[in-house]
């Protein structure tokens, strides 16, 4: 407990506003890198994912790529790109790495969201005369939003974690305190930095979770039947069809 107290003391000490990397600046850097990277990745992945989800084409490739992308070591990718772009273009190299890492989750969120839409709903939409574009924008996208937000959430958290590691190349952000603290053997700084990163991650996660819930179209929540979950083995006659 002593260690945590020291860490909190370090975090809230007025010294944090001075020095080569004031704490607020580190927070800001961390957030900006995350925000910019997720935005760029979303701009690329969402249209692509919606296309795949709506037409069903290219899905095998997308699944395969997402799987392969999970195998990419993010730390190695950053260092590689920094050397390739040149050490004077670290922010560009880092953002490129973050974007590449964020794309798979967002892509999966986009097309899974669309695919989860019940085919009957889409048939109904077609039968009342909606054009393909209208179906996409008025039916599939709104219904697919929760899963898309889920993908964005996943991507954002991953980028936050990777930005922390990117402090190794001198990018700033909250990871800097851990890296400097280990070298200086100041554990209050190391732990303080870690707690700051966790706080940031949890806040972002909470925000996304909130958005995910708010974004569900009102019509869907209103009509939702309570999910039948077979959680107890209490003998109960099986009267309704099993839901998946």
């Amino acid at each position, binding site marked *: 407990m002593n260690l945590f107290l020291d860490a909190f003391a370090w975090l809230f000490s007025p010294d944090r506003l001075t020095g080569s990397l004031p704490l607020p600046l580190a927070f800001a850097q961390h957030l900006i890198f995350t925000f910019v990277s997720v935005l760029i990745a979303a701009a690329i992945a969402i249209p692509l994912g919606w296309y795949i989800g709506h037409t069903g084409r290219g899905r095998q490739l997308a699944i395969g790529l997402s799987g392969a992308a999970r195998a990419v070591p993010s730390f190695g990718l950053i260092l590689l790109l920094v050397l390739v772009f040149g050490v004077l273009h670290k922010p560009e190299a880092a953002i490129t790495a973050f974007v590449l*890492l964020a794309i798979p989750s967002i892509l999966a969120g986009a097309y899974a969201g669309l695919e989860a839409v019940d085919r009957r709903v889409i048939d109904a939409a077609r039968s009342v005369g909606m054009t393909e574009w209208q179906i996409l924008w008025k039916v599939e996208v709104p219904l697919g939003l929760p899963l898309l937000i889920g993908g964005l959430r*996943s991507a954002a958290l991953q980028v936050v*974690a990777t930005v922390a590691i990117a402090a190794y190349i001198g990018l700033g952000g909250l990871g800097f305190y851990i890296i400097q603290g280990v070298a200086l053997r100041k554990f209050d700084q190391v732990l303080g930095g870690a707690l700051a990163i966790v706080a940031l991650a949890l806040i972002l996660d909470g925000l996304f979770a909130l958005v995910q819930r708010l974004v569900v179209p009102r019509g869907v929540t209103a009509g939702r039947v309570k999910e039948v979950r077979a959680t107890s083995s209490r003998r109960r006659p099986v009267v309704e069809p099993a839901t998946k």
Partner: protein
Amino acid sequence: MNWVVNNLDLIGQLTVEHLRQSALPIVLGFLIAIPLGWLAFRFKLTRGLVLTITGLLYTIPSLALFVLLPTVLGISVLSEANLIIALTIYAVAIMARSVADALASVDPAIRQSATAVGYGAWRRFWAVEFPLAGPVVLAGLRVAAVSTIALATVGILIGVDNLGYLFTNGYQRRIIPEILAGVIATMVIALVIDGLLVLAGRWLMPWAPRRVSRARMERLALRVGEPA
């Protein structure tokens, strides 16, 4: 690529180290996730608890977890144990959820029929529910395995040598092929292990459809994303 040819033994050595460090978290994670996932599935109370806690742990960025664990457990930050425990936690977080989902996806009618035929709860779990949940559990295991192997490279930041060494050493010496070799080697062994798991799945569960329902797999993959 000259560098790669001249340093094959180093790459080989590090690959073996890497596999050794990744194997334990994956296996342990799997073993811990089964009872946890079952708890999350069986009781409404524990479901919320288990999923929230694993979800939270999963949200913690790796570098921060490497610092928090030693503080809580009293081990050294710069130790292999730290890395392995952290990787195990991430693996459990991924797989507990997938085991819970997998068990929930088993048709309740089947569960009831098994009981009707005379299976007791324990035997029913191992003989009926778990095998039927198998494909989805395997999907979670694959995601966890690949993620663990990729994530283990961050261990170099806490002084644990594995393929991540090629990253920092290559960066210091400005040798691009070295870093590239590390990245590719990591990806290759991750994808090989993934392939082996698929084959193991087919061998152990010959009744399972070759392709798990796509929608299910994607939603699963989405929920877990990739830790870093």
